[in-house]
């Protein structure tokens, strides 16, 4: 099908974009279009106006500092994935982005657009939540920073207000003693996953100080669960299985056309154990590499 009619604006400055957005209650922002244009073509969305932000200057940056990575609203997934500094400072970015669609989609889709689109099956919202990152948004009223934990409020719904444009996301760096891992199960490589898990583990020697995992495609919103208590004694098969059960207690897997709730629950168990083990190994490996240097 084809999109319903809309008026189209392609502003050259952020200020003009914000003014157009503020003046048109049914307007939508167009970034990479890799989620929005399918919705328009299927007529699941019919905005009165599209405000194309692709001509805005200075928004395609991927800036890395010691504290983390700042990703501008026009940085494509592919540019973030290819940024050596960014993926060194926060390796979870590359691990997750490699699972976001196929390269042709990543060439156009933006990472910030994915954060704002808030698909429960998307990888980056979970990564932002797990790392405790944030999103900077602008409107004619000024700028504010939304913490990741306050960003996701419902199915495909964020706490952005209608007149706000997201300008930059912040992904915190990996801290000392931390390790990360990501894995997901999808029908076909590159498809949206039936279940995906990102993990962040902090160690002191071989002891786990903190363990958390983020889940995609299991609940309506990206969900992060504290799993530290499962590893108070050791990281072994028993504690990894316990972590899986602990995660399930905090999740409510749903049935859809792709997978039953039972099957999703099983994926949560299996992936939690696998990903926590590998994040633990990653953390230990990084500590050892530091000592050897």
């Amino acid at each position: 099908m084809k999109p319903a009619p809309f008026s189209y604006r392609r502003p050259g400055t952020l200020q003009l974009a914000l003014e157009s957005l503020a003046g048109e209650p049914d307007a939508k922002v167009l970034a990479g279009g890799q989620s929005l244009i399918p919705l328009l073509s299927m007529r699941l969305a019919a905005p009165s106006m599209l405000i194309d932000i692709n001509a805005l200057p200075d928004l395609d940056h991927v800036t890395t500092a010691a504290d983390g990575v700042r990703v501008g609203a026009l940085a494509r997934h592919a540019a973030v994935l290819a940024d050596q500094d960014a993926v060194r400072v926060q390796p979870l970015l590359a691990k997750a982005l490699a699972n976001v669609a196929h390269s042709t989609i990543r060439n156009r889709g933006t990472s910030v657009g994915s954060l704002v689109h808030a698909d429960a099956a998307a990888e980056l919202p979970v990564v932002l939540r797990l790392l405790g990152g944030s999103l900077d948004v602008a409107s004619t009223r000024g700028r504010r920073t939304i913490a990741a934990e306050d960003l996701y409020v419902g199915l495909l719904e964020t706490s952005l207000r209608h007149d706000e444009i997201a300008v930059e996301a912040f992904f915190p760096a990996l801290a000392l003693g931390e390790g990360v891992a990501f894995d997901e199960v999808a029908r076909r490589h590159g498809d949206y996953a039936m279940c995906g898990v990102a993990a962040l583990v902090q160690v002191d020697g071989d002891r786990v100080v903190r363990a958390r995992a983020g889940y995609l495609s299991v609940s309506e919103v990206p969900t992060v669960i504290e799993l530290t208590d499962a590893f108070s004694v050791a990281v072994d098969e028993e504690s990894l299985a316990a972590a899986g059960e602990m995660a399930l207690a905090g999740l409510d897997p749903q049935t859809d056309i792709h997978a039953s709730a039972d099957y999703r629950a099983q994926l949560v168990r299996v992936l939690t154990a696998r990903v926590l083990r590998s994040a633990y190994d990653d953390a230990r490996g990084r500590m050892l590499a530091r000592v050897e240097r």
Partner: protein
Amino acid sequence: MSEELHEVRLVVNGATYDVTVPGRRLLSDALRHDLRLTGTHVGCEHGVCGSCTVLVDGTPMRSCLMLAVSAVDAEITTVEGLALADGSLSPVQQAFKDCHGLQCGFCTPGFLTTITAGIRDNPQPTREEAREMIAGNLCRCTGYQNIVKAVERAAELTSAPRRSSSVETPPGEHL
């Protein structure tokens, strides 16, 4: 109320086209209907099949997931723009011919554009990388094996462009 129209200048395969389109005109439709460049095929129209893939400033993108009005600052290459200046087949096109990489041909424009950029960025892909390169494109006929071989063949032809390619025996098990 009549629909708002936009004057848009598109640069496709080196030629400039001025068209008047509504904001909702997909780039794929602008190419096919307004420019009559029907080499770009439209299968699913929501980003999944890959048959509409074109190069935007050299980078593969789905033309069904772009608006024509949004393509104004870009140079677009469609399958019609892949052949060499003298009209002979490009290495990727030649490789598809050599390896029997197409049957009905519906998916082929998307594979050719994707692989053209893929080989440019990674001139010597491994088998695994060749498979990854085409992972976002669907083909209902070939079973993909000969397309993977065509990627490898295209890499070979590209690294030795002056040899007369069509008379050589193509590599591998496909004969």
